[in-house]
């Protein structure tokens, strides 16, 4: 399971980096989306992969930390997902504005 996820993260990172280095703004935004999935999964994976142990405790019962998965990476990733949306929106608008101003969708604002 770990291997599959690791390969998945790797492929997403690779695709993301490839797109990040492309000249068209749309490619870059798709690349950033893929990279953010990869990074979120990577951070999430730092808490190790466990099934059927969500970090929801039972009230009134003494808590055994070993019986639950690590909540920290999840909390980190949760906000990262929302912030990721915000940065995607910002980048999209910047690229649209740049396209409107310069008439091209090249990342440098002009064709090479």
């Amino acid at each position, binding site marked *: 399971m*770990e291997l599959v996820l*690791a390969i998945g993260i790797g492929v997403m990172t690779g695709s993301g980096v490839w797109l990040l280095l492309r000249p068209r703004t749309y490619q870059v935004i798709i690349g950033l989306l893929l990279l953010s999935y990869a990074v979120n999964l990577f951070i999430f994976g730092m808490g190790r992969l466990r099934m059927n142990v969500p970090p929801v405790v039972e009230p*009134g019962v003494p808590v055994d930390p070993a019986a639950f998965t690590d909540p920290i990476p999840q909390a980190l990733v949760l906000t990262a997902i929302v912030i990721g949306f915000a940065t995607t929106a910002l980048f999209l608008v910047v690229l649209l504005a740049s396209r409107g101003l310069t008439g091209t969708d090249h990342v*440098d604002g002009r064709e090479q």
Partner: protein
Amino acid sequence: MADENLLLLLLALPFLGSILAGAFRSNARNAEAWLAGAVALCGLAITIYLYPAVDDGGVVRRQIEWIPSLGLGFTLRMDGFAWMFAMLITGIGFLVVLYARYYMSPADPVPRFFSFLLAFMGAMLGMVISGDLILLAVFWELTSIFSFLLIGYWYHNAAARDGARMALTITGVGGLCLLVGLMIIGHIAGSYDLDVVLAAGDKIRAHDLYLPALILICMGALTKSAQFPFHFWLPNAMAAPTPVSAYLHSATMVKAGVFLLARFFPVLAGTYEWFIILAFAGMITLTLGAYFAIFQQDLKGLLAYSTISHLGLITTLLSLGSPLAAVAAIFHMMNHATFKASLFMAAGIIDHETGTRDMRRLSGLFAFMPITATLAMVASAAMAGVPLLNGFLSKEMFFAEAIETHADSFLDRALPYVATVAGAFSVVYSLRFIHTVFFGPKPVDLPHEPHEPPHWMRFPIEFLVLACLVVGVIPGLTVGPYLHTAVVAVLGDATPQYSLAVWHGLNVPLIMSVIALIGGTVLYMLLKRYLSRCEEGPPIFRRLKGQRIFERILVTLSWRWARFVEGNLGTRRLQPQLRLLVVVAFLAALWPLFSAGFNPGLPSFDGLDPVFGMMWAVGIVCALAAAYQAKYHRLAALILVGGAGIVTCLTFVWLSAPDLALTQLLVEIVTTVLILLGLRWLPKRVEEIDAVGVTITARLRRHRDFAIATLCGAGIAMIAYAVMTRPVVDTIGDYFLEHAYSGGGGTNVVNVILVDFRSFDTMGEIAVLGVVALTVFALLRRFRPAADSIETPEQQRIQNAYDDAQPDRETGDTAREYIMVPSIIMNWMFPVIIVLAAYLFLRGHDLPGGGFAAGITMAIGFLLQYLAGGTRWVEERLRILPVRWIGFGLLMAAATGMGSWFLGYPFLTTYFQYLEVPLIGKVPAATALLFDLGVFSLVVGAVVLVLIALAHQSIRSYRVREAAKATEEA
């Protein structure tokens, strides 16, 4: 306790006044002056009230914890020496405010002036009463910044801008050195607390790092007090309004340097290095400053160089390291402040009433302004060191110290002669100031007809000159006890016996004084004719300008070198920058693995669930295909990215992260809608056309990028695999799991972390979200689509053409009707989605859900209405006002956090309780829920604002299109 809090009030008042002053109307000269005057008077009253507490070595301290873990405290500490300075700052501050009321013209924007002036007063007070080294450095920098703002007050004037920038550059660099120096001293003493440091003098002087610390602190002090070779910023700072020159650049701020030297006198003084550095700088400044002052044609220039020279005198005295010299230095700080401030104000009056400060044009003003002239004469006499005035007393003390031997060296032996010559020079420029301006033939061709100023404008000078006289005649009865208080605070047990009498009998210092007075007068007689017509600046040195050297250095550094570096290493192209970033990140990750001998081990497929494997096979194909298609098939790429997102989301479900899965799914939806809205504005890209011009370099670039991408992917996969297969270590997660219910009142630990344990982080994050949404909104307000995307989209054209061809249809029918059924479903879903959002929100503390997820759900509810009915249809029926949602959310989160202050807990401490509600049962009622409500509201506002702003562009471009069509037809 009352005294301690008064100290806090003393510091807070000017800053509060500054904020208030900035809010007045721009012509409120009187209101501003009343406010600033009241603040200064209150400060003065507080300082006077505190005198009994600091008398005879007493200290008032107010300590507030700042960053205890770093040993930093917000400590205020007033002793006798700080008290003396606080008196000068508030007292002269008050007089300057009074003077400025008449000096500033009604056309000047006074709120800015008084606001900066008060803020400076606060910063300067903070500097003198800091009880912590780092705090001292902070206030020190603040005084530099406000000095910069005040010098540049008339920013339409190029000289003011240049002078301000130069002053900031030099004092700022000095301040940086000072900070490092103070940190070294704090490190040696083991604490940044001033009391501890002052008691650790022997330890510091014996330490290896003493010399670097001394040099750095001297850099700070010498730049601030305009000592050679950093003196040249002060004359250029004279472009400031005269009240500023009187206040900052003669009485207070430039004294900060010598204040600092005196403050650390017991810690740093007495060594040979101390003597060499300061005596060298001080003696050169003393003579050169006085010499330069003689040849100035600008009144303020003369006073500026004279100030430099007097500061040099104080530095020289401090360099000697003997207690008596320190007494003289402290005494001269007081005296110089009184006579120099009054002289600056007199120069300002002359400038104000005649319209010029050029001494070649001024003469014979005595007949027009006899009172001002008399006052200026007395003050100049004090500056020249004429008996029966305060300047004479401290100068005598200086001469007496100059003839003593302290650290046997060439400098020490030269000092008596240097002192006498500098004394003679000061007589020359004082005489020149008085004789040129007030005597001689009547002035011709002045811009204004000269006359006496309003009485209250002259009052500050009258007061200060009276002080010079009284102190000069009966020193022991007037300043005696206060000077003693200040001296004891600096020297402690080492306080020497000294006498403040006017007459010490016929001794060597008196003879030196007489020589200086007579020599100076004779020299002035000889130079008089030359001076009345020579150009600005002294002979020989006229060509050698510190200012020009400074500017040349600046140009070399900030222009030539910067351009060289930019031209050779920089690029404006994004791709090389990103490539560099990626490669550096890759190497930075590789290096520690490589150097630590990392061995990933053989991968194994043990325990693989085939379904999970197949799911990821889909995810991998989606990611690769998206990368492949992103250039020419944007919609396909978007769908494929969505596929990868769904696989990510399912992974979260699979691996015990329901909250993440929920949020990921919802964000996936809004992101897709967002990019769909953006797609419309991108240019068409056709594969066949582009394929023609692919060059070899482009191909090579692709291969290289492919290699980089593959390496990065492989690397991250390896690290991820290595970490995930290692046994888990104890993390702070255990603490959160154990305390989520008992401490936070929720069973969903992820949510409790977000809204309770780490809620301050969350608050920062929602603030970022709000800022981004507003930025997007602001950017889109000025959005101009490219010409080729303004036209009606192809799909709509086809639909409209079909409508036109059918006799029973109107144009636009198809566009309206083609999603009739889904849109009715979407309309009907609206209340259901609202209930779903409320449900997700309420259960969030105990089960997967929470403010983020609920907020996005709610936003999707709004969006579906836009999709179903179109922008106009929705906005005719529903006013969403997303900016208010954002504002409410932030305020709600902050108010919840501040609520805990009232109960005596730190910011964002939560309180929870379970309430029994009839029918529903037990519901959690934690304040965290209110915080989560803030998160919810902000997320709704931000998401809706971004998407609606983008959606509105279609309407706007429709309008643009219609307008273009209308002009074409006309």
